[in-house]
Structure formats: structure tokens, C-alpha cells
């Protein structure tokens, strides 16, 4: 799953289907050259978030250039922030994006596919907040 040299992307959503769908969309739009890993739902398949799932996803997405985590709402943000407070189990530089979920993931993944570093990928995700659709 991990692709050496490119920033990896982890999607943290309350819903496994939402995380997987957004990951599929970002992968297709970016051409499939970036590790985009979904971490949605609880360990027993309910709506919610799981620190263990996020940790596994970061390990899968890690290609040595850092991993950007994009959370959807509320406790997804809290779960990721708690994890980042104790980054001992995480294998690489991990940052959290304050960004709209779908747009942020798509913008970040395309920037990673273009060879952007973790700083550029984070900026792309956060700039998505200002993107107009009409």
C-alpha cells in the first residue's frame, strides 16, 4: 500500500463507508499513485472512530515522506489529536489537516501525486476550505 517517497493520506471518518468512498474518489482523481488509506468506524463496525484503526492506517500509508490525516467531524478530530499527543507508535511525521473532508482529501492526494512534500500537501488540504464550486 505505501509508496516510497510520496506523502501518504489517511481518512478518519465516523463512517467506514464514507472514509472508503472518499479514499476511492481521491485515488481515482489523482491517478492511483498515492497511498490513501481509510480508517472509518469503530473496531466492531459501528459508527465512530478507533485509534487502533488510525494507527494501522498510518503504518499502511507511510512511504517515508510523512502522512497527512484528514478527519471528518467531532470525535474523529479528538481521536487523531490524542494520538498525535503520544506519537510513539507512529512510524513517520504525521500531521492533521483542518480541512473539508472530501475536498481536502482530493486536493491533498493530487498534491501528493504531483510530488508535493508534507507541507505542500497540508497546505493544499487546508486551502480547500476556500475553493468555490460555482
Amino acid at each position, binding site marked *: 500500500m505505501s509508496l516510497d517517497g510520496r506523502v501518504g493520506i489517511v481518512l478518519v471518518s465516523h463512517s467506514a463507508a464514507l472514509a472508503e468512498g472518499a479514499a476511492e474518489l481521491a485515488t481515482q*482523481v*489523482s491517478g492511483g499513485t498515492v497511498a490513501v488509506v481509510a480508517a472509518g468506524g469503530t473496531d466492531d463496525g459501528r459508527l465512530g472512530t478507533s485509534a487502533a484503526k488510525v494507527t494501522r492506517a498510518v503504518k499502511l500509508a507511510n512511504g517515508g515522506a510523512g502522512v497527512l490525516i484528514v478527519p471528518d467531524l467531532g470525535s474523529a478530530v479528538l481521536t487523531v489529536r490524542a494520538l498525535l499527543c503520544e506519537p510513539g507508535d507512529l512510524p513517520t511525521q504525521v500531521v492533521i489537516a483542518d480541512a473539508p473532508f472530501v475536498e481536502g482529501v482530493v486536493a491533498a492526494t493530487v498534491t501528493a*501525486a*504531483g510530488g508535493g512534500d508534507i507541507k505542500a500537501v497540508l497546505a493544499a488540504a487546508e486551502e480547500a476550505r476556500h475553493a468555490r464550486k460555482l
Partner: protein
Amino acid sequence: MPASYEEAITLAGDLHARPAGALAVAAARFSSAVSLSVGTSHADAKSVLGVMGLGATCGQHVTVTAEGPDAQDAVAAIIAILAEATRVGA
């Protein structure tokens, strides 16, 4: 030596999400600044959301402009993607 280069194309199909992604990934390979214009709207070609936000559709005239050391190659690459991707309607 920095240069400016520009070329236009009439779209044979709508500019969907996947070609917008391919375009932004390709534009990122160049050090030149690359922009797209459709009517009065402009977008940074390296921003996938910006490119999608143009809402460019079949029959519209898109101008690709680049400024920088590899401007001509950048414009050629982006024009090629616009021609191919909108043709197959990806």
C-alpha cells in the same frame, strides 16, 4: 531564461474530476506557474479544486498560460491532457 507562453483549445467534452486531477498532477511537474482561463474565470492549473471550479464544459475555449523556465513544455503538456481527456469523456 524565464518565458511566458500561451495556447488555447476548444474543449471537445466537459472537464470532469479525473482529467482535472491528471491536469493538476502534470502541472506540478513544471517549475513554471501555469494557469487556465475560461471566459472571465481563472484557475491555478496546479490546484485540482481550482480547475474543477472552472466548470469548463464542451465547446468552451480554454486558454493555458505558463510563465517560467519550462513554460512552453508546460503549456504543451496541459493542452495535450485537455485534448485527450475531454475527448474520451473520462
